[in-house]
């Protein structure tokens, strides 16, 4: 094989003066995690709202929810990021557009918002399935007790639904983390982008990508373990058969 291996490359100084190549990768890792968490919070908030909308008796609410989900699910994430990043500043009034473009960390905010909205559609679907899987009697009993719709959701339906959909939500969170890598196309220098940069500066292709792979696997393991912990903490006896 015509390739020169050099595993000590990680301890050699990177040209951007901030330390070694390993530091470069770790700073990318931090940015990945930050973006993923911000996006996930957005996804949870909007996804919950839309998920609830889709299960409401009102037809308009249902339609709004449906439109939201279809809109964000039928476009590739990459295309959505491009629209947020490249198209939005151009169609806004010039001064706003300029402010958007010159904003420091524009890729970070764009990525968090873009990925957040993309994942919110999926969270909404999960929540809808979760609420749908609850016995119909729950809602009926709540009405019989005199609770308003808002109270029904707040005290009866949502607490159960969220616990039920925790496992799929875990995998959606992992998806969010993986999707942050798409943001490298709009200039977010997260883990995959740093691995790429490392490959370009040092020419050690496989070392760079192996390191990125290992780091992603580590994130995965940590998140899965943390979520399992959380699930066990919140499990309802008799409902969730924990592992």
């Amino acid at each position, binding site marked *: 094989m*015509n*390739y*020169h291996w050099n595993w000590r490359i990680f301890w050699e100084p990177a*040209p*951007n*003066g*901030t330390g070694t190549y390993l530091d470069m990768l770790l700073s990318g890792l931090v940015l990945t995690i930050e973006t993923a968490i911000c996006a996930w919070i957005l996804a949870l908030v909007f996804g919950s709202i839309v998920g609830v909308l889709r299960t409401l008796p009102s037809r308009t609410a249902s339609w709004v929810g449906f439109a939201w989900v279809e809109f964000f699910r039928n476009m590739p994430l990459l295309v959505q990021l491009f629209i947020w990043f490249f198209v939005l*500043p*151009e169609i806004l009034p010039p001064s706003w557009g*300029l402010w958007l*473009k*010159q904003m*420091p960390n*524009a890729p970070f905010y764009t990525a968090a918002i873009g990925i957040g909205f993309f994942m919110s559609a999926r969270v909404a679907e999960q929540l809808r399935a979760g609420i749908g899987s609850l016995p119909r009697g729950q809602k009926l009993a709540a009405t019989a007790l005199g609770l308003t719709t808002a109270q029904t959701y707040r005290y009866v339906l949502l607490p159960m639904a969220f616990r039920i959909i925790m496992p799929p939500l875990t995998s959606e969170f992992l998806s969010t983390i993986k999707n942050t890598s798409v943001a490298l*196309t709009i*200039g977010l*220098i997260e883990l995959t*982008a740093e691995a*790429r*940069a490392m*490959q*370009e*500066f040092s*020419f050690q*292709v496989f070392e760079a990508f192996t390191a990125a792979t290992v780091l992603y696997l580590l994130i995965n393991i940590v998140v899965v373990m943390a979520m399992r912990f959380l699930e066990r903490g919140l499990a309802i006896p008799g409902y969730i058969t924990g592992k």
Partner: protein
Amino acid sequence: MKRKYIIGCALAATLCAGPALAEELTGTLKNIKETGAITIGYRDSSIPFSYLDDNQKPIGFAMDICYKIVDAVKKDLKLDKLEVKLNPVTSSTRIPLLANGTIDLECGSTTNNADRQKQISFTNTHFLTASRFVSKKSSKINSIDDLKGKSVVSTSGTTNIKQLTEANAARNLGINIIPAKDHAEAFLMVETDRAVAFVMDDILLAAFVAGSKDPDTYVISKDAFSKPEPCGIMLRKDDPAFKKVVDGATAALYQSADGQKLYDKWFMQNIPPKGLNLNAPISPVLKKAFAAPSDSPDPDSYKAM
């Protein structure tokens, strides 16, 4: 003259019951003879070296040089026909794709330096450029220090972005460096005010400014990030037979009158697709490099007489 080259214990049997050649073919030449095809890596917006015209066909100064190399290879291998396959590359994929065998020659404006020569080889230099930056006149950026704290874009995988990164660290400028996938994308960022400056080889910058919607709004800096550095066509390392053919072809081209004519065609006359004329007469250092072709990575060895 026999050349023995120990590649590995697994040498696949030659596909063609080749005629008895005096030399044993090795490496790239062997592959070309067996497959009857040579693959050239081209760029899509390195005007005027290698770029796509209106019909999405790659053309340019470096492309023409590469076609001359292909002719020489064809003659050397005594082939009746040699298929030329074209493969798009970017600044960041060119070296890995050359190393993993996807392309045989990379025809663009790749800077020749000692670091890269650890991974691949270059043939004789066909141009020399320095890293400068282009910005809008309205940004009033006149020197590298004026970039302090601003957003500056460059293309990933280039020596230019590396020099920008190093200068940023050395001079403590706090520049927000944006990497772009290719030159067109980077220039578009300056055009749309997403970045205040684009750092790249000065000749490429001149081509972009000339071809833009409003050339007068841009200015190319006088400050340079480096001395004029040599650019060459890349080929795989440790392949002396192929390098000999390529070097021979390029040297013959540069030293003949055709070399000067080729230069004029791309730098002094109207070029497709928009018919712009770069009007860049051959510099004394390049004239010297053409007269005495060299693949040295050291910029100092190219100083004019």
